[in-house]
């Protein structure tokens, strides 16, 4: 993998920025910007509506992006719904499940303390509205999900099992083993794949999830894009979550019927330019190769463990590199995570401080906040050296 050539595709890196915040949002390569520019400049039109050339081209490119993205995650185009973010996807999914599952008071949701608030909070609210019980699987060593615990929590009352693909704090990859699902009727399996897609090879058909979601902006796509994946047989019977234009079959003043499958879940005008950009991002990542990107990031994570782990007063909250999507959170004794991040910023090193929208996980880790560095295809060992220098400076400043 030619990191120098890759770095040339990212204009944001031109002025010496050390960008270690891809888990918050990734940078955008030129081909993605070009694809979006081309849409806005040359064939800006709404999709699935107009009968003129630009509208047809926009529709073709939009649907082409869908095929591209589906192939990228080992799914088919009729399983990929576009949303405005991972959060929009998870909320819409939870409403759709509420309209479909005929939930009874006392039914259970099993999820984990590793979840991002984007998954956690819609489920908590769903539980409140319907008198459901939410149960949380805990962590075991190395920040891994405790699969024994998960296994025990799932009972015949469990209707939804929601497990993240990987933690956005510790980078730890998680799974739902087949043998956790043997009790009673199969619950609906939901996976938050936001930290995974574009960072490691993902194959939805192998994952055996009923639903999954991820955002576009953490995988070289533009902000304002997200994907909800639903297994074909599920999308055929799922009731819509949101209602509005574009997803209807027929409407009278008394009632409406809705499109079946993907078109029934894309109410309103889509982020057409954004989706086309996300399609270009997937082409870009595919051209470089997901295995290569994964290996590169694993190498960087290894190096970060070696360098950051050796620093005095530093505690790492990060899974071992081979099971880590490229995220290393840390604390420095005697210095607040915000101050570490601020001093890093003075070194032109972009990292994030806070709880990273995962408060229950921070509680489980026993810290109020951490400073988080995340690695991607455009990062180098020099970037990690710059972070090490910044952490040392933070220690010097506060000692």
């Amino acid at each position, binding site marked *: 993998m030619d990191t120098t050539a890759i770095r040339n595709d990212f204009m944001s890196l031109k002025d010496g920025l050390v960008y270690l915040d891809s888990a918050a949002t990734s940078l955008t390569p030129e081909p993605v910007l070009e694809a979006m520019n081309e849409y806005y400049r040359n064939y800006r039109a709404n999709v699935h509506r107009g009968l003129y050339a630009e509208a047809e081209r926009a529709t073709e490119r939009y649907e082409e992006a869908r095929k591209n993205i589906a192939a990228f995650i080992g799914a088919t185009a009729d399983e990929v719904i576009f949303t405005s973010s991972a959060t929009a996807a998870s909320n819409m999914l939870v409403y759709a499940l509420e309209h479909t599952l005929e939930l009874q008071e006392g039914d259970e949701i099993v999820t984990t303390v590793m979840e991002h608030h984007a998954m956690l909070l819609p489920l908590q609210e769903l539980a409140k509205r319907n008198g459901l019980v939410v149960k949380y699987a805990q962590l075991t060593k190395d920040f891994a999900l405790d699969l024994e615990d998960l296994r025990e929590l799932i009972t015949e009352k469990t209707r939804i099992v929601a497990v993240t693909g990987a933690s956005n704090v510790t980078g730890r990859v998680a799974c739902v083993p087949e043998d956790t699902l043997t009790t009673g009727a199969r619950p609906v399996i939901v996976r938050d794949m936001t930290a995974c897609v574009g960072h490691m090879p993902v194959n939805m058909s192998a994952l055996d999830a009923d639903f999954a979601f991820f955002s576009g902006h953490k995988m070289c796509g533009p902000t304002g894009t997200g994907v909800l994946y639903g297994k074909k047989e599920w999308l055929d019977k799922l009731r819509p979550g949101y209602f509005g234009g574009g997803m209807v079959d027929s409407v009278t003043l008394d009632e409406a019927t809705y499109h079946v499958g993907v078109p029934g879940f894309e109410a309103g005008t889509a982020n057409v330019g954004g989706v086309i950009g996300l399609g270009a991002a997937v082409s870009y990542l595919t051209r470089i190769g997901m295995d290569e990107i994964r290996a590169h990031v694993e190498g960087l994570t290894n190096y970060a463990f070696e360098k950051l782990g050796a620093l005095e007063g530093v505690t790492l909250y990060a899974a071992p590199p081979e099971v880590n999507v490229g995220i290393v959170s840390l604390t420095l004794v005697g210095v*607040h995570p915000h101050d570490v991040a601020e001093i890093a910023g003075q070194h032109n090193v972009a990292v994030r401080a806070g*709880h990273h929208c995962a408060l229950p996980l921070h509680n489980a880790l026993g810290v109020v*906040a951490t400073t988080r560095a995340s690695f991607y295809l455009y990062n180098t060992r020099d970037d990690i050296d710059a972070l090490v220098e910044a952490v040392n400076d933070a220690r010097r*400043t506060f000692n």
Partner: protein
Amino acid sequence: MNEELYQAHILQHAKHPHNKEELADATISVPAKNTSCGDAYTLQLNVQDGFIEKAAFTGIGCAISQAAASLLTDKLTGMSTHEAAQVSEEDVYTLLHVPISTTREKCALLLWRALHEALKEHHA
């Protein structure tokens, strides 16, 4: 103003904050939380006959919120509640005397917001 955020006086207040203690005779206690970064303080005032006999705080947070809490409680002690109500955001920035970026505003003003909550409670 020097452009550096972590100047000696800020670090001094952050490491050795003034008035960081639990007030046994507090007449008002107000929590102050910045959940996005985990900062959590309690501002305590002992108000007698309309005067703040003592302002103090407890809790944890970043250097900026810590220094602001230290400086603000210094300033408040001895003020009348009417004077305290006039303490503005600008006054806090003047006390800190370092450039506060948009992203650190919440840190700088955390205890100041608690002060106004406390005064509301006092007058209620």
